[in-house]
């Protein structure tokens, strides 16, 4: 009887403990456009605006994290003479937009900088994170938490990542670290669009991102459907004095001129709209909860953030506004010497894609594919097609801007103070660029879970380096910038082919 009483008490305490684990994101008291985790509040850290480098890191579990790591450790080796000093291309990265597996690498670099190259392989890449996640679910005190329907498996991932990887750091810490601006992308399940862990997004929820841990954002970004439950945020009632941006007033009027902008407006409005609560009579948000799943569902490359900055002048790091800084004068044909013109400016977009090429294993046999194969294809084919379309969209946008910048200057002599058109560079790094057939097939066959043998991790890191080394566009960029790169990739474990 006494033993039963002890067990009952233990159960009650564990149950009460579980009550406290249902997460509620912190309320924002007042919206402050000049503070919080935003691009313009980050210290530049000596990072020059004239060389604007954007890195996107795709999803794909440990294989994506390792490939991203290899690319970043290689960019760190690129020595760059810039504005009278020597720097590395990695130090010039201004924005990193990441999804799922790539978010581990991005967030770790954002918080700990060079520790990414010292302890990240041991702390994440070589680890069997998958087994740890499974073990933590079945640990009895954790299992008890699932009594609550609101409690999700993803909460255990949040704790694991915060405790063992990100050391409980928050977005306040990420802000304090300064540039690069790390954009961790999840997916808003209802809207089917990227949900970014940046304060401007959390302003619409009247929530304070600075007190949210990085582990939570990475867990949301990598909550692969099926393996992880969606992560839920509270969309707090509008008590923070949210001020709608100026373009909101114009968007309904522009619905036919700018349908994409109007859709962005509708999406934004969905976070803000309020309805009368029939029980209390007060106002509440129409979507009081926002459910998040893996960022790869909406955009597996993290490239949507770049597209938005290209097509949306209200973006906090509008690429169009950056290009406009060197817009030529509208009139006059006065001559000026080349020396009158200021130094060159360059926009560099590097896309790291750990996605698979299409496989043809099903086509080796006459048997029709089973239900699992068809469902897998149904889920992955649209994402792959969308990724390819996004790559082409960015490539075409940049090509069009280059053509227009050239037309803008055609037949004009530069005036004093005029600058040359900025250089726009796009570098895509994916497995389909691997020339060796055997290696490419091996890379494509690697699973996208959170455990890979050490030799595969090193192979991926080395591949990141070799993709850069073999990229014609990257070579052209280095030549333009006058940068130097030790191209043997031997600094990565496992050696390089040189």
């Amino acid at each position, binding site marked *: 009887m006494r033993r039963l009483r002890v067990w009952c008490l233990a159960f009650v305490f564990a149950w009460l403990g579980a009550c406290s684990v249902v997460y509620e994101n912190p309320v924002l008291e007042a919206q402050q*456009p000049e503070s919080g985790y935003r691009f*313009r509040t980050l210290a530049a850290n000596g990072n020059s605006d004239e060389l604007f480098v954007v890195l996107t890191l795709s999803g794909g579990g440990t294989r994506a994290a390792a490939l991203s790591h290899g690319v970043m450790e290689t960019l760190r080796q690129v020595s760059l003479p810039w504005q009278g000093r020597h720097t590395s291309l990695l130090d010039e990265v201004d924005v990193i937009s990441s999804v799922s597996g790539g978010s581990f690498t991005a967030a770790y670099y954002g918080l700990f900088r060079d520790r990414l190259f010292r302890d990240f392989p041991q702390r994440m890449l070589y680890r069997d994170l998958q087994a740890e996640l499974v073990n933590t679910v079945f640990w009895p005190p954790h299992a008890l938490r699932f009594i609550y329907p609101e409690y999700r498996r993803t909460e255990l991932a949040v704790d694991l990542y915060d405790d063992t990887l990100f050391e409980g750091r928050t977005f306040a810490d990420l802000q304090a670290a300064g540039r690069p601006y790390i954009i961790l992308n999840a997916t808003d399940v209802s809207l089917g669009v990227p949900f970014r862990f940046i304060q401007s997004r959390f302003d619409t929820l009247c929530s304070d991102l600075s007190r949210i841990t990085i582990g939570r954002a990475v867990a949301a970004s990598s909550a692969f459907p099926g393996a992880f439950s969606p992560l839920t945020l509270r969309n707090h009632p509008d008590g923070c004095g949210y001020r709608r*941006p*100026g*373009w909101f007033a*114009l968007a309904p*009027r*522009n619905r036919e*001129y*700018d349908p*994409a*902008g109007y859709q962005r407006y509708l999406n934004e409005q969905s976070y803000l709209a309020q309805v009368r609560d029939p029980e209390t009579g007060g106002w509440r948000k129409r979507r009081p909860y926002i459910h998040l799943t893996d960022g790869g569902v909406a955009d597996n490359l993290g490239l949507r953030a770049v597209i938005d900055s*290209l*097509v*949306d*002048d*209200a973006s*906090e790091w*509008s690429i*169009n*506004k950056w*290009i*406009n*800084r060197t*817009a*030529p*004068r*509208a*009139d006059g044909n006065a001559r000026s010497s080349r020396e009158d013109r200021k130094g060159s400016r360059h926009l560099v977009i590097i896309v790291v894609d750990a996605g698979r090429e299409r496989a043809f294993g099903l086509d080796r046999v006459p048997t029709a594919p089973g239900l699992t194969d068809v469902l897998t294809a149904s889920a992955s084919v649209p994402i792959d097609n969308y990724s390819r379309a996004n790559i082409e969209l960015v490539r075409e946008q940049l090509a*069009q*801007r280059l053509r*227009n910048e050239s*037309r*803008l200057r055609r037949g004009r002599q530069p005036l004093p103070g005029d600058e040359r058109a900025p250089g726009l560079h796009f570098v895509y790094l994916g497995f389909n660029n691997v020339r060796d057939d055997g290696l490419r097939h091996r890379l494509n066959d690697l699973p996208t879970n959170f455990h890979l043998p050490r030799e595969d991790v090193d192979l991926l890191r080395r591949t990141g380096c070799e993709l850069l080394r073999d990229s014609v566009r990257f070579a052209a960029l280095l030549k333009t910038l006058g940068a130097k790169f030790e191209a043997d990739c031997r600094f990565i474990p496992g050696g390089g082919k040189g």
Partner: protein
Amino acid sequence: MNEYVVIRYPTDRDVYLDRDHAVPLGRTNRILTISSSGWHIFDLGEPVDYTPESRSVLIVNTDVDSPHELQFEPKGA
């Protein structure tokens, strides 16, 4: 759809788009690119020593070679 505007003013100063005063669209007297067609509001930010205080204009079907031109004047000019 990219559109093109020139905001005329006697001196060089910042131009702001759609009341977003965090980052300027560009500078006056330059051929500026806008990322989307439609109605837009232009102003020159602080100090408001120019007239009109802002201009709301429909920007469509412009081209690099034929940008939409808008004029602001110093107050009292």
